């Protein structure tokens, strides 16, 4: 922290003005500075920052500090701060706006790479699994259960079943690295008598473009997935994330 008094008249406070414009419902000026947000935030203390400090620094116009701290990537956007806040100051969206001010190439590489990978085909898989691979794994694993597990000769894991009630998303990690973990879920759906399906398009549950705050591609991925659900005529889109 600074040892000398801050001269606020020298601050441009461009980020504060941007928040007022883009997030008028963000209640920036309603903060009591009570600290309820910081008390319940697991990111408090990381990078010498916490949610209350973050809001005060925005309000004081300390743009340089606010827009360069990596703390905004150490926030998980869990929304506990706004949930607990008596004035509903929208800190998570302020963190999101701060993420957007970082040049794309400066944002965490792992998140950007996962976002880019998901854009490579219509599965939206951040691990790059394509339509054929996904369908093969699902059908192969289901066939093995039918053959080897007594009482499960009728187990189905439908892919592209038109008109099913539920369109089920799946995190890429299961089909790619631990496919047997999908089986218990299929069994539960079977026992519940659910009419469900996967889709070769849009099956991947994750969307790293949201975390990257790449708005255009975040929307693009949501639209690809929503179209896949609509194209199969499913009523409910189930995301297990």
């Amino acid at each position, binding site marked *: 922290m600074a040892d000398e008094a801050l001269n606020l008249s020298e601050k441009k406070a461009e980020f504060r003005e941007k928040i007022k414009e883009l997030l008028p419902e963000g209640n920036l000026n309603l903060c009591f500075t009570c600290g309820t947000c910081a008390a319940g935030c*697991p990111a408090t203390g990381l*990078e010498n920052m916490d949610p209350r400090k973050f809001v005060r620094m925005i309000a004081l116009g300390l743009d340089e500090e606010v827009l360069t701290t990596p703390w905004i990537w*150490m926030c998980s956007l*869990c929304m506990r701060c706004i*949930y607990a806040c008596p004035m509903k100051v929208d800190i998570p969206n302020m963190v999101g706006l701060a993420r957007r001010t970082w040049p794309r190439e400066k944002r965490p590489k*792992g998140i950007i790479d996962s976002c880019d990978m998901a854009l490579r085909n219509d599965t939206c898989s951040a691990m790059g699994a394509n339509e054929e691979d996904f369908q093969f794994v699902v059908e192969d694993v289901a066939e093995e259960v039918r053959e080897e597990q007594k*009482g499960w000769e009728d187990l189905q894991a439908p892919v592209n079943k038109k008109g099913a009630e539920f369109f089920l998303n799946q995190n890429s990690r299961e089909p790619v690295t631990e496919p047997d*973990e999908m089986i218990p879920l299929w069994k539960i759906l079977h026992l519940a008598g659910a009419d469900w399906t996967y889709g070769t398009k849009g099956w991947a*549950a994750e969307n790293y473009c949201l975390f990257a705050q790449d708005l255009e591609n975040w929307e693009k991925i949501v639209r690809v997935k929503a179209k896949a659900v609509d194209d199969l005529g499913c009523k409910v889109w189930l995301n297990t994330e």
Partner: protein
Amino acid sequence: MQDPCQLVRKSFGDPVAEDMRFVVKSVVGEENFIDMTPNMSNNYCCGGGGGYLQSGYTEARHQYGKMKFDQIKNTGATYCIAPCHNCHSQIHDLNDHFDGGYHTVHLWTLICLSLGCLGENERAYLGPDLAEVGL
């Protein structure tokens, strides 16, 4: 049991947290369920969401997750149920990092175990005490 932020606080709130508890108690037996504190909509994030697992800030993610780790350890429970993919990855990793001595399981694993239909290859996350049950 972890309350996934995405499911509870950010989507369906306390009613779905109550539903999950109904399912978990039915599955493991009410006397075997120990809630962490705070819980439901007030529960803390595990630190696996928001892109954290892919962000490269691993040390910060572990520091963040210490709060969750301590919550879990304070229950004294030997299993933590994580009904969300990111939560499962993070809570499992926290156990490895801080040497917690607890097991991290998906809810689907315990549902099928209690129904007597959990296959041999579907038990990667069960501890030795449950690994052979119902086979």
